[in-house]
């Protein structure tokens, strides 16, 4: 996020998810707690789980836990796994604890499983 010279006097930071139809606003950044997620409803009725990492980066993946079918990934705990490429944030499903990479949606405990991953951006908009 950059602050432009002509930014409106009062702005807020808003989290947006990229869907097939374009960028979709989800909530104000201030609503998110680092290390926790929230669920968001997308225009086509699908559910996304939106997270904030410790350093303030936002992520979004599908909210449905593929192992149980329940829409609960947003309620899992966020962690990070050290890897050669640096530490990668994940969420652990609150039901059976499988972990999903927040950036790619890949399940870290089962190579064959993945959930959708969404692009997220934080936009500065007029309040």
């Amino acid at each position, binding site marked *: 996020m950059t602050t432009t010279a002509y930014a409106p006097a009062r702005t807020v930071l808003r989290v947006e998810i990229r869907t097939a139809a374009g960028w979709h*606003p*989800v*909530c104000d950044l201030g*609503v998110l*707690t*680092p*290390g*926790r997620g*929230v*669920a*968001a*409803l997308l*225009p*086509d*009725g*699908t*559910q996304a789980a*939106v997270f904030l*990492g*410790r350093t303030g980066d936002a992520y979004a993946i599908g909210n*449905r836990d*593929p*192992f*149980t*079918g*329940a*829409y*609960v990934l947003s*309620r*899992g*705990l*966020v*962690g*990070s*796994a*050290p890897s050669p490429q640096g*530490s990668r*944030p994940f969420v*652990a499903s*609150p*039901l059976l*604890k499988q*972990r999903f990479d927040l950036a790619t949606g890949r399940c870290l405990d089962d*190579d*064959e*499983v*993945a959930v959708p991953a969404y692009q997220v951006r934080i936009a500065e908009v007029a309040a």
Partner: protein
Amino acid sequence: MAPTTTATTAHPPRTIVLVGHGMVGQRFLEALAEHRVTDSARVVVFCEEPRPAYDRMHLTSYFSGTTPDGLSVTPAGFMAEHGIELHVGDPAAAVDRAARTVTSAAGRTVAYDVLVLATGSYPFVPPVPGKDARGCFVYRTIEDVLAIEAYAQGATAGVVVGGGLLGLEAAGALKGLGLRTHIVEFAPRLMPVQVDEGGGAALRRTIGDLGLDVHTGVAGKEIRTDAAGAVAGMELSDGSAVAADLVVFSAGVRPRDGLAREAGLDVGERGGIAVDERCRTSDPAVYAIGECAQAADGRVYGLVAPGYEMAETAAAAIAAGPAPAPPAAPAAVAKTFTGADTSTKLKLLGVGVASFGDALGAADGCLDVVYSDSRAGLYKKLVVDRDGTLLGGVLVGDTDAYGVLRPLTGSVPPVPPEQLVLPPGAGAPAALGPAALPDDAVVCNCHNVTKAAVRGAVADHDCTTVREVEKCTRAGSGCGSCEKVLTALVNDELAARGVAVDTGLCRCFAHTRTELYEIVRVKRISSYVRLLDEHGREEARSGDGCEVCKPAVASILASLAPVIGADGYVLDGEQGALQDTNDHFLANLQRNGSYSVVPRVPGGEITPEKLIVLGEVARDFGLYTKITGGQRVDLFGARVDQLPAIWARLVDAGFESGHAYGKALRTVKSCVGSTWCRYGVQDSVRMAIDLELRYRGLRSPHKLKAAVSGCSRECAEAQSKDFGIIATAAGWNLYVCGNGGATPRHADLLAQDLADDELIRLVDRFLMFYIRTADRLERTSVWLERLEGGLGHLRDVVVGDSLGIAAELEEQMAAHVAHYRDEWAATLADPERLARFVSFVNAPGVPDPSVRFVPERDQVKPDLTLLSGPAIPVRGTLEGAPA
């Protein structure tokens, strides 16, 4: 019939057609890929069922929540990666061996060089009149299970025909669906193929105790139907009849050899496509594998392990190309299949049953060693040879020894057989460990993995966990029955190799929970991030932590909050982000994403007014209610956005959080005691209420349960609790470290005839000492077993104050009591804390459409069909969302 002559090239075939995509078919495809045959050959698969191969063995787990997708054994992308053409829902209809083509029901015709039949079995339905009525089912496919579940909605009773392995599984499923369940078995005992008479009797008793009606030695004679032609009941061969709305046939399976018969291939006398030791049929261009085949030993195997082995055998033969003149077969091709072990171990309706080797004692002159305890539902029999060679056995009720005994079959065990069947504590020596197994013993039967291979995975492939060994060798990835022995073996091997087993809490901390507790206490660290950045592993510092240490540290911070000056409210600031979802929403997450609510009912004493409020709240919010074992009421099916409104009503009526969601004190159960009971010697209810109010909200390494009984008759079952109190004429006896559940343990007597205040002081010290020294998720029973010096040491510390920490422990407890606040009242009082209780952050008023319910026995249950689809569209619900 003259087999067509084989092709002359020694190259792998160009087109391979597989008919049947079941468990064995899929294993065959994987083996082809491993042999790299898929690199050059075209592989076409005809799959009759509407979905690719799935785990049929665990079909019953559908009823405990596994989705059809979760059962899949076909890795995503597998077909594409290997260029395999899979025709789902399109069965092969005919084989023309002369033209070497297969034609499918949808009209596809594919020419093959090699044809592999893996068509499995079909359930045998005995010819009883009425067998085709509405309400009759079989138990083999996901479609069967879906149909049974749907039909059972309106049903009250069911009959399972067949008391074998599958019949009992089906019966368990019906019982789980809430039906009164009958099992009808023609043989004089249950599981006649696997267990002997004694084992059958033990099984029958235990299953009868579970509330199933077992009818053995009778056959179903006729199915009664109602006017509409639906099942109404069944008449049995002994003249009796049972009422039932549905019937599940599970009377054995028959090989599906129809396609092969029509194509003129040889089949066995009692069915099954005849194959040789390379799994070739009477036409060398055609192979048959799995349950549809009759193996070279003349048997048809109804288990997956022999099927896998046949799949590997056939794939190896095909990879090697058409066999050259017999004797010159290269070593790599020499894999043959001539017969298999049919050992089984499973949990039926929660009862362990295992049989292996010559379980029925068929060998000449063999001897039995039997231990039987009908009270405990135990039956163990070993069959041995005169020289002591173990030939086989049957275990009912306790199958722990299976993992070691089965691989020992065929050898003389290192300890006498009678010691192998006696329960621990009955004069038996320590259980036989995997060290007793020879290197060539097969520890995982499903994937034919030997002890040597498991050791090799640790030694040569640097596996350090059971999971890694499983990935490396496949051991443990089939039925799972070898898990226990595998774990012991891997640990032994790691220890033997001097691999320091990392005792750290998780990937983030090299310290144990106890060490972290001390660090937090001494350094007065009140923030997780600080703890991680200062005391975490190097590579984890400044990261996000993980799902293991976050709740563990949250629990330590909560336990020590009064001492280190932190805020004890579990949802504030950083603390909120550490909690498991249950603690986060102060409710218990259930399988469909809804929550359950359990208000505290101290000592199980409740006024009629409060009971009415519980009923009214449940009714008004449409919640399912159930009485818990801890003497309170559990209200199920609340959406996250309903929790505040529900709790507003409950708090209003004087209820507090019951902490059913936390690793914390749950309940102190009590009997009515001396106030009402003619035997009672103390007021057990009063004591239970005092204790529950004192320790409510206390966060601990695991949940804590307690009970108080008013006399030695022990109606409150105090000896199965973490701390239990039994009244005596002179005061109270304190028992500690008991457990119910999966690994029951009788509590140990810590101190006798205590006065009220003495009792409370000892419990204070005991609990705080446990909280300080136990591992994460370690119940008191396990903690005591691990504690060096055991019960003696515990008594020294808690009663004798041998460490000089008693005063400190008491102080900590006093601080806990002084700082207690009801979490729900605190949450309701604060709009900011309430803000999180929405289903969707961008649509606060919109309920989660995936959380819905259907009726069941006058209440509701989760509608799980909503969870099986990839997504649930919602229309017109986004109005309330912020722009």
